[in-house]
């Protein structure tokens, strides 16, 4: 039944309204990061947009400027103190190293397992799949205390390598199941003809099948990167001197008050890479979130 013009307009209005509501927190967050402190903490009126935007918050968090320097520049003495701890350049570097490291490790290891689970027939294949899946459902808190002890014992506590391994563990089930679903999309006959031509399994994998699932692997890698980039609990427990972005942000909340300008500036910086990446993998997002079982 064709929709009338009024119905179409109403639907547009409703849809735009809903999307706008969901975009509001992000917009508000971004706006907060470029507002002067006085506008953020205004108790009398809500300042939606301040026409004197400032990049001071970014200069402190991303360029390592101290607050004292800022105060001297502007000639005011408002909020001087607490200097170096807001500089987040090292944090961004740490987060990037850990996210890239764990992505490479997860995809590398997961690729082999995914191919075997998709192509080879062996006893216990379903059991192995179920086991990998069950790892996804394990609450990380259940293993955190022993993992802290373990990493401490081998001197990997509070190192990039330690966190890379733990993030790889968390992401591996998703990566394996997701990449298996991409391998399943490639018809078996292609492998078989390569095998008949005399290729070994590994040659078939590397030279024939792998090039065909390149897109799927890229999407898996992007999702692994995002999961590691946004992970909070494990990073909080396993690190003290190395800080990933989500953990660092929470340290800006102090007993004497929260530095909302810096928090929102660093928060915005943490969101932007995620947004860019997610727009690249729109098509595979549903598949990734459902571990390969729903093909969006």
């Amino acid at each position, binding site marked *: 039944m064709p929709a009338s013009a009024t119905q179409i307009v109403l639907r547009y209005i409703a*849809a*735009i309204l*809903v999307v706008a509501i*969901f975009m509001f*927190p*992000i917009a*508000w967050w971004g706006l907060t990061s470029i507002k002067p402190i006085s506008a953020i903490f*205004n*108790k009398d009126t*809500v300042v939606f947009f301040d026409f004197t935007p400032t990049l001071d918050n970014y200069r402190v968090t991303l360029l390592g400027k101290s607050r004292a320097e800022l105060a001297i520049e502007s000639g005011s003495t408002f909020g001087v103190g607490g200097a170096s701890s807001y500089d987040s350049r090292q944090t961004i570097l740490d987060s990037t190293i850990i996210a890239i490291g764990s992505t490479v490790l997860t995809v*590398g*290891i997961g690729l*082999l*397992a995914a191919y075997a*689970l998709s192509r*080879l027939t*062996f006893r216990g294949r379903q059991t*192995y799949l179920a086991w*990998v*899946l069950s*790892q996804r459902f*394990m*609450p990380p*808190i*259940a*293993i*955190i*205390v*022993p*993992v802290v002890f*373990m990493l401490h014992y081998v001197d990997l506590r509070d190192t990039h390598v330690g966190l890379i391994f733990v993030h790889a*563990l968390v992401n*591996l089930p998703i990566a*394996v*199941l997701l990449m298996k679903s991409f391998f399943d999309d490639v018809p078996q006959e292609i492998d078989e003809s*390569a095998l008949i*031509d005399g290729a*070994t*399994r*590994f*040659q078939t994998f590397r030279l024939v099948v792998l090039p065909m699932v390149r897109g799927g692997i890229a999407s898996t890698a992007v999702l692994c990167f*995002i999961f590691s980039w946004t992970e*909070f609990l494990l990073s909080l*427990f396993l690190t003290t001197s190395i800080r990933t972005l*989500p953990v660092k942000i*929470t340290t800006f909340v102090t007993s004497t008050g*929260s530095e909302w300008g810096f928090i929102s500036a660093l*928060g915005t910086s943490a*969101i932007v890479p*995620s*947004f860019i*990446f*997610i*727009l690249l993998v729109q098509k595979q997002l*549903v598949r990734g*979130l*459902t*571990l390969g079982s*729903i*093909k969006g």
Partner: protein
Amino acid sequence: MDTTPAFVRSAPRFALPRFLTSEHPFPWLFPSTALLVIFGIYPLLYAIYLSLFRRHPATRTYIFDPAWNWTKVFADERVWGAIGHTFLYTIIALIIELVLGMLIALLLDSDRRGFGLMRALMTLPLVVPPAVTGMMFLLMLDGSFGVLSRGLYNAGLLSPQYPILATGSTALFGVLLADIWQWTPFMVLIMLAGMRALPREPFEAAAIDGASATQAFFKLTLPMMSKIIALAVLIRGVDLFRIYDYVKVMTDSGPGTATETLTAYSGTVYFKNADFPYASTIALLTLVLVLITSNVFIKIFRVRF
């Protein structure tokens, strides 16, 4: 005709045992199995082992006492409180996110101009780091200058004397708001994928027979999507059950213990009391509850991956 094979297998100088060749699953699965065992299974067994010890508070030594933590955990009122908060949080969030997600998916399921863009925008909340989401809502719900709090005050829904996150009876709902904002898009995406994969014929037949859109939804869309809905609920439910980030960032289990979930309580025992065996015990209890609940769910709704 050229009959040269594409791959020429050179004769091996020595023969590897079969389980080391690429025909056997062993070399393929070895790296992932190693990672899962070393960082997954071993710590889990270690956690069980650890839960059998009692921590002596003064000497900080561990004394083997298998029953100690497990009797303590069931007698601990904070554990029961945490179980209650966790289930309440999970169930409320699931219902709201599922219903809202379904409605928004129905609304956005259109091929008209602009709807594709709106669907893309809806995915953005999903990838905001949860700790940052917690911060966003902490800012917006701030008792004195938060934009959302003020909106609620002006609408007469809240009173400035009882800031939402600092009042025991409402704090959990404040935390839920962040969860709902971040994860409703998850449901929207999955429902949209499900709706787009539905066959057209039954709907055409129903329209010819004079069924209304509402009837078509309840009699066709919902039953045909039941598998996908069950799967989405399972995945989201398991994640909700281990909720930690928002609670830690927004209220730190407070005020008092009003928003303390199981994971958060375990974290508190770990950080504040350094009672590692007891922290492990609470964490293991969380795992057991997840296993029981999810398996019952899988059995009832016959979820398949």
